[in-house]
């Protein structure tokens, strides 16, 4: 009996590792970055677009805006493509095709982000530069690459949401004489809406948090973009680009950037969980 109690305590300790790690991460990021936010002032930190760390200027507005724009761009590309694929796979394709396509999807999901970035540099950036102008390394390039990268997330969660809708709904609608598409658009999609919204929110989270691919194709300029062809630098890129050589206050500023990013992503993930729970 005593041995059992001991084992239970050990397992409890192991189980606390996940929440413990989360706590550690939160604590350390905040410890390292918060002093800088205090000394610069939250308003100046977030709302100034002047980022010159060596001269003591720490405004991340340009990067916040770039992150938001890149994410919106990624959604504009990823959601229509992703939803279409999900609808086709879940509602309009025969079982055999589904069996081929699902593992293919998982393959897509397994390709590392750096590979996407690389191919973006090799193929997409020259295309943009030659046909649309600008340096090619741009907001547009980042949006497209990110949009493609979040496809597997959006597709697979949406497919789960669609297949979770009971056949009863579909049969009822078809029995009333509706076409497949009418059934899908008026019955199935609304029923699956919370799952699809979750997919979109999680896709957003993934897009905002992506670093390596964005660094490779976005151009990393420190200005607020005025056109999609402008090079941009996101919050994540900023951290990754400068961490290697930053010191002192500069390094603290990067952690402070991390705090902002962390909070944004936590809010997104929590809303996704809330949406799923309300189902």
């Amino acid at each position, binding site marked *: 009996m005593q041995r*059992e109690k001991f084992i239970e305590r050990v397992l409890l300790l192991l*189980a606390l590792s996940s929440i*413990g*790690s989360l706590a550690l991460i939160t604590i350390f*990021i905040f410890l390292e970055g918060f002093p800088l936010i205090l000394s610069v002032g939250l308003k100046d930190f977030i709302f100034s677009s002047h980022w010159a760390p060596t001269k003591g200027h720490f405004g991340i507005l340009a990067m916040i805006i770039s992150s938001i724009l890149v994410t919106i761009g990624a959604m504009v590309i990823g959601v229509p493509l992703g939803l279409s694929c999900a609808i086709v796979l879940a509602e309009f394709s025969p079982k055999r095709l589904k069996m081929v396509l699902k593992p293919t999807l998982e393959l897509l999901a397994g390709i590392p982000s750096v590979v996407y970035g690389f191919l973006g540099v090799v193929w997409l950036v020259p295309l943009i530069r030659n046909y649309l102008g600008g340096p090619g390394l741009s907001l547009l390039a980042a949006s497209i690459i990110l949009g493609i990268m979040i496809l597997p997330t959006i597709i697979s969660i949406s497919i789960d949401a669609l297949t979770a809708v009971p056949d009863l709904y579909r049969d009822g609608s078809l029995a009333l004489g509706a076409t497949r598409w009418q059934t899908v658009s008026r019955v199935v999609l609304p029923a699956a809406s919370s799952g699809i919204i979750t997919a979109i929110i999680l896709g957003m989270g993934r897009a905002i948090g992506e670093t*390596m691919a964005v660094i490779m194709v976005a151009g990393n300029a420190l200005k607020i973009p005025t056109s999609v062809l402008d090079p941009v630098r996101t919050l994540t890129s900023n951290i990754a680009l400068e961490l290697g050589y930053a010191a002192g206050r500069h390094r603290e500023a990067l952690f402070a950037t991390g705090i902002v990013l962390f909070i944004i992503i936590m809010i997104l*993930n929590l809303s996704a969980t809330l949406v799923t729970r309300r189902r």
Partner: protein
Amino acid sequence: MRLDPHTTQRLVKALLWTLTGFTLLILVFIIADIAVKGLPQVTPGFLSQDSTDMGRAGGIFPTIVATAYITLLAILLASPLGVGTAIYLTEYTREGWATRLIRFGSECLAGVPSIILGLFGFVLFVMKLGFGWSVLSGGLTLAIMVLPIIIRTSEEAIKAVPQDYRTACYSLGMSQWQTVTRIVLPSALPGITTGIMLSIGRSLGETAVLLFTAGAALRTPVSLFDSGRTMAVHFYILAREGISMPNAYGTAAVLVISILAINVGAYTLMQRLMKRYS
């Protein structure tokens, strides 16, 4: 002008299939490009030789070793923690505030972006604990990254074990731990193994975390405190610094093939284990 429903359906289907086809084309293109430009680079020499001239010449052997070393460490750390958590959640507690808290921790952890993990690993392991850029720092941070994956898949696998097995064991006078180790875990093994292999696949592609914890030394790491460059990090550096296109493609090919192999291996292993244990 209102279209009749059948025409609408035909138009919509055409649109949807076009978009789907387009998406598949992108995937095929990605795989094809890597295969065509990368596979020719993957010779036995490429895999076994050291890197020279900053990666311009030679092979990627040090990166293969670093990748294996760091991934192995991460899995060795995360598996007992993850499986233990899953066992605790399913076998030792009822649903309540404790289980919800643990699960919340795990889900949030899963959502932390890799650059933040890299920052964390950098400040805690590299700097404060003094491990420096090393296999150890990289492995520890990576373990935290894959922990939620292992928890989630292990929990599913353990929950899928029929309750009848447990009832039989308890009524025969077996203790809880005996039941878990001799019947529940072996039956859940296929699912748990799949989760571990998925974690390996995820680790192979990870760059942001490792760049700032394991560093980028191009030597073959020997001790836990040596710095090492994984294949993904090496690929990133080659690509970004424009050092060598052929080698970049070659590294990408090895990377993608490894990840493919792990994912395929995970599913076939799961099929085989399921046959053996049920």
